[in-house]
């Protein structure tokens, strides 16, 4: 029946159009803007100026590398924090599994910006947390956390850890309990049972989690603005400044493209190493 054949196209068409117009085309638009020259007063002319990329990279390579580094650190923190939690909820959450999951998601009903700003309160030199710990002598008097790299990384990890917990949980939860049982019978010590059986099965979840945390954390600018200091500018901050403060659109678009290119290369080599299907399947 002809109708049957056209149905899927009719279904996908609206979303296709939307994504094409407001996702695919804008990426092209940004590419074209990155190849212009000029300023707000004279306008920006299409000169196919490839030099913008050279300027962007030579001025901001440090911020780009730092962003990838912070993103990487935050992702590791997310794994360290998120894996055990996902593991525990999946295998020991029992009746309350969904309650625990909701508890993990609940803080995210409060605005991202507001949550991040709250950390300033906890991390300030003489604030409730650090001040108290310093007073009872647990921390050295001169220690600063706010406006430093650890503060930014902790902020990033804080904001994105659910994106690590959920995919790992999803994979572990689907595991056949008999398989876990069998693993424990097979290997006498629990660590080997874990590394030989559970960990390999859960890896796709970890991989998906890494994608979902590494990409947004390395491109974030809110945490660096709120919790960072004199040396913690990330590439997101630069992009924002170039677009919204300097109105230097060609350079802004160039840096954005470089960032996107780097992340894409990362994603695709990652996907290739693991097999595309696997990553996309769990991710999706």
């Amino acid at each position, binding site marked *: 029946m002809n109708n049957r054949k056209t149905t899927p196209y009719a279904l996908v068409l609206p979303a296709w159009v939307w994504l*094409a*117009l407001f996702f*695919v*085309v804008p*990426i*092209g*638009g940004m*590419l*074209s*803007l990155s*190849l*212009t020259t*000029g*300023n*707000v*007063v*004279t*306008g*920006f*002319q*299409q000169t196919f100026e490839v030099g913008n990329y050279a300027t962007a990279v030579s*001025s901001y390579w*440090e*911020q780009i590398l730092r962003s990838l580094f912070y993103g990487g650190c935050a992702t590791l923190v997310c794994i360290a924090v998120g894996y055990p939690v996902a593991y525990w909820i999946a295998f020991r959450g029992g009746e309350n599994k969904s309650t625990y999951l909701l508890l993990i998601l609940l803080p995210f009903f409060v605005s991202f910006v507001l949550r991040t700003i709250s950390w*300033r309160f906890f991390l*300030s*030199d*003489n*604030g409730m947390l650090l001040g108290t710990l310093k007073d009872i002598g647990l921390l050295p008097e001169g220690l*600063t956390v*706010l*406006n430093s790299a650890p503060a930014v990384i902790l902020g990033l990890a804080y904001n994105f850890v659910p994106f690590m917990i959920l995919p790992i949980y999803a994979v572990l939860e689907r595991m056949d309990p008999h398989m876990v049982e069998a693993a424990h019978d097979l290997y006498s010590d629990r660590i080997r049972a874990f590394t030989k059986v559970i960990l390999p099965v859960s890896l796709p979840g970890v991989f998906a989690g890494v994608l979902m945390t590494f990409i947004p954390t390395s491109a974030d600018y809110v945490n660096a603005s709120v919790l*960072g*200091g*004199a*040396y913690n*500018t990330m590439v997101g*901050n*630069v992009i924002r*400044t170039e*677009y*919204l*403060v*300097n*109105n*230097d*659109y060609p350079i802004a678009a160039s840096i954005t493209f470089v960032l996107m290119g780097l992340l894409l290369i990362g994603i695709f080599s990652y996907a290739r190493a693991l097999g595309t299907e696997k990553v996309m399947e769990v991710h999706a």
Partner: protein
Amino acid sequence: MNHRSRAHLDPALVRGLTTARRGPLISRRRTLRAGGAAAAALALSACGVQGQRREPVAVEDYWADKERTGRLRWANWPLYMDPEHTQITQFTEATGTEVEYKEDVHEAPTFFGQIQPQLANGDDIGYDLMVLTNGFQLSKLMELSYLAPLDHTRLPAFAESAGESYRNASYDPGNEYTVPYASGITGIAYNPEFVDRQITSLQDLWDPAFAGKVGMFADVQEIANFGLLANGVTPADSTKEDWEAAADRLREQRDSGVVRSYYEQDYIQPLTNGDLWITMAWSGDIYQQNATAGTDLRFVIPDEGATLWTDNLMIPYTSKAPVDAIEMMNFLYEPEIAAGLTEYIAYISPVPRAKEILTDWAGSEDDGERAEALREMAESHLVFPTEEEYQKLHNYVTLETAEQEEFSALFQAVTQS
């Protein structure tokens, strides 16, 4: 056709431009039909972003057909008038004009980024009157001819009451487009709870004794001024070499580990709780914080000098109520009104007589607390600097858009790392 479509581009491309302007959706749909995303990107690349300068308009021509509308929309910085909007109520009582007051100006550059495309299109930006600080964005607005030229015959109170320092500023000679709303000093503030000596010099901001406890401003112009002054250079006369030297000086400060962070405007809270001991600061913020939170923060104009900035009233050329707007400008120069405004905002009034009026009010006030507050304010050097102090205050560097990029890049390399 207007100025914009005469742009720089060859005729085939101009056609692309005009389609784009007629309606984005139509043009996008058409390009899409023409062959998918790649083609669309190519079609886009024919556009660029158009030049947006307008031809300046003579004062008489601009005002010739303008009439009072009875409705004024005003954009200002947050907390720049008391929450009851006393001055606006007084204005409405005096003129009958209703005012819609919006605290929409949070950051000059983003505000500029928001209104610029609309002004380029000749569209209403939703405001008839706005307040912006002298600086890059104001220069750009003037350079692009986006501001209505002021008809000074409609500003008698300004002529009568404005202080000498507030006429004919270097950034707007002859007050062609702007009149001051309030001014402030960028100087040094410190918290005596943590700093046990008198701060007198810019060099104190470089002192390793305050390692990790010094705050600097992220705004390129503000921080550049301090770098220049620390090197003994007057900002307004500075050359490119001076900028480079100043940037080096600031970089050295950063690399010595003295600077905790580069702040946008949120330095008061860290200064109060001890995260910062000493910082670049705005006079009115410190005055207000001491007055409302009972803190004992100190503000100093360093020996090397400090900067005086001015928030200015201006009318976008697309204003729907320029007559009402200029009436408001004039109204704010009535000394009584200016004094009332100053009482709340605690920044420097462009009307020197406000000082006398505040003192008079203090004398006739029954409420002892308010009388005390008024007297304190009238005597405060933060709100009414002395002649001697004015001598130490400098204006910003005034730059054309083309120079601004170089200047920004130089100092952002310091603050954005």
